[in-house]
């Protein structure tokens, strides 16, 4: 689970590869419906396969489904979680940790990225230590974070911050470096000052790349959060997942996993929607 995002993946990973392209107006509705149907069938097929394997306690050599809960057991565990009234608390804690870590990482990553991308002096001063820390997975920060922060809450937020920081930072640098120098020259010829160049040209030109960094960062936030909660949490959806294992509430494991998946998917979709709203011109360029 501690998959490290490689620089190549950070630079080029498309964030929309999993969404179907927006369909056109005419005849699009039917194509849209059949696409949804296909996706629904795919999920249903997967659940059925899972049920068949879990219900028969299938042993397949390397892997065994002996103790894997069935979909129905997971459903039951989910019902219990909701009825017990703890769901809101688990979700609330996780959401707050992700939001705090992500926002801090966005602010630091975009701010530093703009300066590093634009000024060679800042790059020389800051990039070497950052490059050294970049390959360290956020999970490896956990022991140090516990030592550094007296509050367990803050140490978990810090872990999500570290996870999101590098994708945001690297994509921002990449975006700033990729700004067409002719645009900068034209802006200078039109009377743009040093500070205005950032606001008027560099930031909007780098925005698509920054948005990619934010979407990837949101994903890494979630897997970092869950590992942090498993180790030092008291509430939170990652903690719940691990607690379910230790209490042999195996259905709860599935509930926790699904909740993490849905929250991660939802928050990434939110980022994409916000990015699309902030960059209406990219839709025009794509439709040419």
């Amino acid at each position, binding site marked *: 689970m501690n998959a490290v995002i490689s620089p190549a993946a950070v630079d080029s990973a498309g964030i929309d590869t999993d969404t179907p392209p927006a369909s056109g107006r005419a005849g699009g509705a039917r194509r849209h419906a059949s696409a949804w149907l296909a996706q629904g069938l795919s999920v249903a097929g997967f659940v059925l396969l899972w049920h068949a394997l879990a219900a028969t306690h299938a042993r397949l050599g390397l892997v065994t489904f002996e103790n894997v809960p069935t979909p129905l057991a997971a459903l039951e565990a989910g019902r219990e979680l909701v009825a017990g009234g703890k769901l809101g608390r688990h979700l609330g804690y996780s959401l707050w940790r992700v939001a705090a870590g992500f926002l801090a990482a966005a602010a630091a990553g975009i701010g530093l990225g703009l300066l590093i991308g634009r000024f060679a002096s800042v790059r020389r001063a800051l990039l070497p230590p950052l490059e050294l820390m970049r390959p360290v997975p956020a999970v490896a920060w956990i022991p140090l974070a516990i030592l550094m922060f007296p509050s367990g809450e803050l140490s978990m937020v810090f872990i999500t911050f570290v996870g999101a920081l590098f994708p945001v930072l690297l994509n921002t640098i990449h975006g700033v470096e990729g700004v067409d120098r*002719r645009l900068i020259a034209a802006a200078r*010829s039109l*009377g743009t000052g040093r500070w205005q160049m950032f606001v008027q040209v560099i930031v909007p030109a780098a925005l698509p790349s920054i948005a990619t960094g934010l979407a990837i960062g949101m994903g890494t936030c979630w897997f970092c959060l869950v590992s942090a909660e498993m180790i030092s949490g008291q509430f939170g959806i990652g903690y719940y997942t691990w607690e379910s294992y230790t209490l042999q509430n195996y259905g709860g494991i599935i509930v926790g996993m699904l909740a993490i998946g849905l929250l991660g998917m939802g928050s990434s979709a939110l980022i994409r929607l916000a990015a699309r709203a902030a960059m209406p011109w990219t839709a025009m*360029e794509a439709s040419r």
Partner: protein
Amino acid sequence: MTGASIAAGRVEIERVHIEVGAGADRFEALHDVSATIEPGQFVCLLGPSGCGKSTLLGALAGHLPPARGTVRVDGVPVDGPHPDRGLVFQQHTLFPWQRVIDNVAYGLKMKGVTRAERRAQAEAMLGQVGLAGFERRYPAQLSGGMQQRVEIARVLINRPRVLLMDEPFGALDALTRARMQQLLLEVWARVRTTVVFVTHDIDEALFLADRILVMSARPGRLIEDLPLDFARPRSPALVTSAPFVALKRHCLELLHRGEAEVPLPRVTPLGAPAETGAAMAVST
């Protein structure tokens, strides 16, 4: 937009040498060029690809500092880019994130003009280049010819002393190019700023200019100063007239003489080799 308030725009180029490129690739792009351009004059820099005409334009714009010599506009030495010296590139440099109206109004925004005032001026300017009604479009929603018209409007709204154009119609199809030349002359007839227009197209230079400065291949030197006295307004019929054809033959001979044995890569006014490929392509 009225032409009355446009400043003079006398350009003095004095013994200018320019080197471009970095390290071992550095070469002299321009060798000892001197010329004076009168206010309101329409001058074409004509020469083969890689002869340094865009380099000279970059020096006038203030993007390429000369190694030796000086460039002055109305007596003031050029020491950096300025809205007084508007630069139009071959491939448009409109901001893709701004609507047409905001692109055109951009220079006024940088000057601190109020929003209402700069919108009004930008609308008037768009009318001048025949793009009334396209204010709300994004650049990507325009054709190549329209994009160049917006680019010209964006530069002219600053009322520059000099309008610098680097093969602005080079990427357009023949028909659009002819229309754009006509349009440029119409706008210029109203605005009357000094124009320095870079091209390697002899017909284009002869059709547009009051005066052609012919350049030789690298290192670029001026090899002829050719005044033109075709009457204005000029019509498309001009290009088939006998005096036009005679001058064209003369220019062809000059260019053949000034040409390098090996074709040279194009250099942009920013001093870098022109990029190629899809990233720069202007479609439709």
